[in-house]
């Protein structure tokens, strides 16, 4: 039964707004994520200008007072993690790719898929509303530690705090429902003949990420309900005066927090694996090792959460346990990166924009990974905790994940999404104008952090040791580099919008890749494949000796 026969003409409303097609829902997540990234980017521009030129009237915002500074910082963090990294990496690529790459026509529960996007959209709207309520947006850091976040007489944002919490809780519900959809689809709806080790790595990674998210978000949803009751009815779950304990929230939060960063890392590693193998024309080195290290990272990520709380009042003896587990988790990640580097050995690398971004991900993420060891080891974390060193570390992991790997995925799958090719020269301009300024933002922040500058402080002039000119110059360098990086995104948006309609026509398999999604026409119609494909081999059969073509698609007999 080919899927074309029920193709009645759908109205715009049905086709785009209330669509149940996994590709349209994937695009909805993508565009919402990119829109929220613009908001998050505007926030970072404003408060970085305040840090570099304290007290000035920031063009486009005006003078920044401490209350606004705190909510800008808090919501920059919340938006970039919950409303940009997760939707784009897990939901957008997951929705778009999983059905195509495992050779079926849609997600198992299309309406549930649409519902999860709608809940996600509501959560984004609630967050944006929280900026304009009385008292302004929530200003107690994206980790929202009580009692600051629990009592409005402390955080002075009565409405902002509760709306922020509601938005985050709704976003969790959206990704729980979405996660169930992804896991069930991958487990059950694989193409006939596609065995466990024939599934492309990006699908595996997105599903492992969904499982990690589902297992870790539970306690935080319970925590969010408790914090919500604390805010509204001041019951005292986290209020020491009433018997509660503020450190309980930290444990609830970071038990979710650390698996969360791996939830975001794994899909990015999956995208990079796809792009690298295609443009190096080489089979992924040790597919099973990548899979097992990803699972090992996932499992270990539940044992490490208190390395965020070494100096925050937990029992010092616990810190020793978590130092050991944190350094243990750096081992599978290092092995996964080594395997990716080993994949390049013996390849014939084509430097398309997608490949440039994937290679840049590997180079930049190595810095992020290595600097994490300073923070995982309890001895050095005493000094480094909550300084700009931490900030630079997690930007060297988050930016490669949420921005560099996302661009790699976008440039790689754009032909499949739109049926057109993006302009390569504009892509390369965009690449260099993103990567070079990125390093000039965060290397100075490493130095600032090492010289004792702590996070989220509104104006460093209040600290004589930090108000010295050398450090202030570093802040200016970081801000100027940020402006270059923001300007560097203009070629991308121009390229993206123009090429969607007027780009050079792309056939079904422009990159000559081997995975199943390239067997569908681009852009794939509602039912994806005219004839649902079977799968005969692994996803990365490139340059197989004795074959003239250097790629062997999974669905070709």
């Amino acid at each position, binding site marked *: 039964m080919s899927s074309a026969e029920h193709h009645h003409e759908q109205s715009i409303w049905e086709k785009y707004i209330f669509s149940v097609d996994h590709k349209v829902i994937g695009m909805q997540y993508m565009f919402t994520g990119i829109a929220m990234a613009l908001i998050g980017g505007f926030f970072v521009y404003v408060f970085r200008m305040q840090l570099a030129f304290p007290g000035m009237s920031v063009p486009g915002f005006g003078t920044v007072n401490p209350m606004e500074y705190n909510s800008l910082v808090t919501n920059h963090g919340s938006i970039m993690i919950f409303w940009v990294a997760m939707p784009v990496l897990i939901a957008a690529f997951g929705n778009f790719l999983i059905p195509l790459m495992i050779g079926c026509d849609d997600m198992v529960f299309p309406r549930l898929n649409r519902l999860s996007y709608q809940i996600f959209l509501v959560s984004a709207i609630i967050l944006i509303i929280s900026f304009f309520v009385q008292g302004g947006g929530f200003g107690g850091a994206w980790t929202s530690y009580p009692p600051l976040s629990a009592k409005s007489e402390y955080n002075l944002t009565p409405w902002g705090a509760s709306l922020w919490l509601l938005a985050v809780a709704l976003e969790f519900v959206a990704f729980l429902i979405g996660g169930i*959809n992804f896991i*069930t689809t991958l487990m059950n709806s694989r193409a006939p003949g596609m065995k466990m080790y024939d599934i492309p790595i990006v699908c595996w990674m997105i599903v492992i990420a969904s499982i990690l998210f589902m297992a870790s978000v539970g306690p935080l949803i319970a925590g969010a309900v408790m914090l919500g009751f604390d805010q509204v009815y001041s019951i005292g779950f986290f209020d020491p005066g009433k018997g509660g304990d503020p450190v309980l929230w930290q444990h609830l939060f970071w038990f979710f927090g650390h698996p969360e960063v791996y939830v975001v890392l794994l899909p990015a590693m999956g995208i990079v694996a796809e792009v690298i193998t295609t443009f190096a024309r080489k089979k992924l080195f040790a597919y099973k090792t990548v899979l097992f290290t990803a699972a090992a990272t996932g499992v270990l990520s539940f044992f490490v959460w208190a390395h965020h709380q070494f100096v925050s009042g937990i029992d010092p003896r616990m810190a020793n346990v978590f130092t050991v587990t944190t350094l243990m988790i750096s081992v599978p990640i290092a092995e996964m990166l080594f395997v990716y580097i080993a994949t390049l050995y013996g390849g014939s690398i084509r430097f398309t924009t997608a490949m440039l971004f994937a290679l840049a991900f590997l180079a930049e993420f190595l810095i992020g990974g290595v600097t994490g060891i300073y923070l995982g080891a309890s001895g050095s974390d005493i000094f480094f905790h909550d300084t700009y060193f931490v900030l630079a570390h997690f930007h060297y992991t988050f930016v490669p994940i949420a921005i560099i790997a996302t661009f790699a995925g976008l440039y790689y799958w754009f032909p499949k999404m739109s049926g057109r090719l993006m302009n390569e020269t504009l892509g390369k301009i965009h690449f260099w104008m993103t990567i070079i300024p990125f390093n000039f933002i965060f290397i100075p922040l490493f130095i600032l952090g090492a010289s004792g500058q702590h996070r989220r402080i509104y104006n460093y002039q209040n600290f004589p040791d930090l108000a010295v000119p050398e450090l202030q110059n570093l802040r200016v360098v970081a801000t100027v580099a940020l402006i270059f990086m923001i300007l560097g995104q203009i070629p991308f948006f121009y390229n993206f919008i123009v090429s969607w309609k007027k780009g050079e026509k792309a056939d079904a398999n422009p990159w000559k890749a081997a995975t199943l999604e390239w067997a569908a026409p681009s852009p794939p119609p509602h039912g994806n494949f005219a004839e649902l494909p079977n799968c005969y081999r692994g996803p990365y059969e490139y340059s197989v000796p004795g074959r003239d073509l250097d790629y062997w698609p999974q669905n070709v007999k």
Partner: protein
Amino acid sequence: MGLVQPIATRRSATGIPTGKLAVWWLIGSEIVIFGGVLVSYIILRHYHADWTEEAAATNVWLGGLNTFVLLTSSLFAVLAHYYMEKRNDAKKASMYLWLTVVGALTFLVVKSFEWTHEIQHGYVMTKSLFWGFYYTAAGIHGLHVIAGAVIMGIIAIQIRQGKHYNRVELIGLYWHFVDIVWIFLFPLLYIAK
């Protein structure tokens, strides 16, 4: 409804039907959510020895009655699944489903009596942290009971119209899970005095 079920939903590479697999995962995520509340409660209970006389005010009899009600409704749910699965008898299955919904409503009625009694005697949510946990945990569980009852009613109607026979088992699984949560809530909130 215009939606044609995609082929993906009918595939079952794992041998487990997709609907059931999704319910297993849903129950998995619910375990972790209830676990979060109960672990926090157990730990703070361990810290606060003074909660025992607070807990003395909880009414074991009504709690016990609710346990009995939920256990019975679990029996009806599994019988509904039995008749649907083995005997393909939609009428009997639907009757048992409605009996389960009646069980859920009795549970909620008993709980409302219990809560109004306690609130009248001043044991409100903000009296002490024990009562905070008591109302939060039982409240979340109560919401799940309401959600289960509503869905069960819808499915009972659907199978009478001859659709979605497999959903009887799915709602049964969810209902057994809600019962298991109460099996743990009962000793924690009522018996641990």
